[in-house]
């Protein structure tokens, strides 16, 4: 698919899945979408391996925008991008935006064929600078 992919990374699998449901309701299958949440051991948290897997699943040559909730999700997502390495890493951006609103807005922008830069800018508009 040529639309920008969206990855949702929450500490809670329920939040991640629920956010993904809201994205799907908005854009259907027009946007590559994946989510992950939880520490991989049944608890709350985020984990690099799962994030790398979600990026693979939502991969698009147009790039991937990642929406995160709290600090560890951001740090782990940045780590995952670094471990994926170039050339793909330059097409993956961790957004500074609220996770639910950011994911829905970013996906909506993506579904219209916007570039990664435009998708990320739309998500960033939701955060006070």
């Amino acid at each position, binding site marked *: 698919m040529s639309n920008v992919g969206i990855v949702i990374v929450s500490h809670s699998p329920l939040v991640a899945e629920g956010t993904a449901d809201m994205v799907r309701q908005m854009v259907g299958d027009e946007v590559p979408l994946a989510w992950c949440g939880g520490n991989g051991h049944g608890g709350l948290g985020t984990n690099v391996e799962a994030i790398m897997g979600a990026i693979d699943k939502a991969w698009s040559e147009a790039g991937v925008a990642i929406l995160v909730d709290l600090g560890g999700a951001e*740090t782990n997502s940045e780590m995952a991008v670094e471990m994926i390495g170039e050339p793909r890493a330059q097409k993956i951006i961790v957004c500074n935006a609220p996770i639910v609103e950011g994911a829905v807005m970013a996906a909506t922008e993506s579904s219209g064929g916007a570039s990664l830069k435009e998708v990320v800018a739309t998500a960033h508009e939701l955060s006070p600078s």
Partner: protein
Amino acid sequence: MAALHLARLIAVAADTIAAHAEELTALDQAIGDGDHGLNMKRGFEAVRAEADAFAAKPLPDALKAIGTKLVMTVGGASGPLFGTLFMALGKEIAADPDRKNLAAAFGKAVEAVAARGKSQIGQKTMLDVLQPVHDALAGDKTAAEIADIADAAAEATVPMKALRGRASFLGERSIGHMDAGARSTALLVRSVGQAIGESA
């Protein structure tokens, strides 16, 4: 550094974290999300499980592999932060480092942790221990003196207001508690430093 030596350091580090896991969790519960002790223990036990394989590698490769293992197993923000510390150390260190090389490599590793956490000194984080430890390493302090410096630095996070991580959400209420990452860093510095000192 001999193969046995690195395996011994891993065992010492994992023992220390395991012995203090509940204390670390309690610190993190006070002003964080309360998973630090368990997360660190899981990560260091995963490293311990492959200690012989790590120890068989040249030191730079071993440290990079340990860092990657920590990234993959610790979770939380600590995984990437401690993982980055070891990965960057491995990138900079010599196969058979002297004190000068160790200090220089450690300095680069501290910078890498600061970049990963988008943090700096004085924000009530592990950096508040790492930086004085680096300064002491670059000077002529003994392992015992460095361990004391690390403990004092962790203690000095108590009156700080957290500006990074989950604790920062508490604002003023983060004052009066020791940062869990600073404590775990000091614990590792003491135990590993002591083991290196004994075998030197």
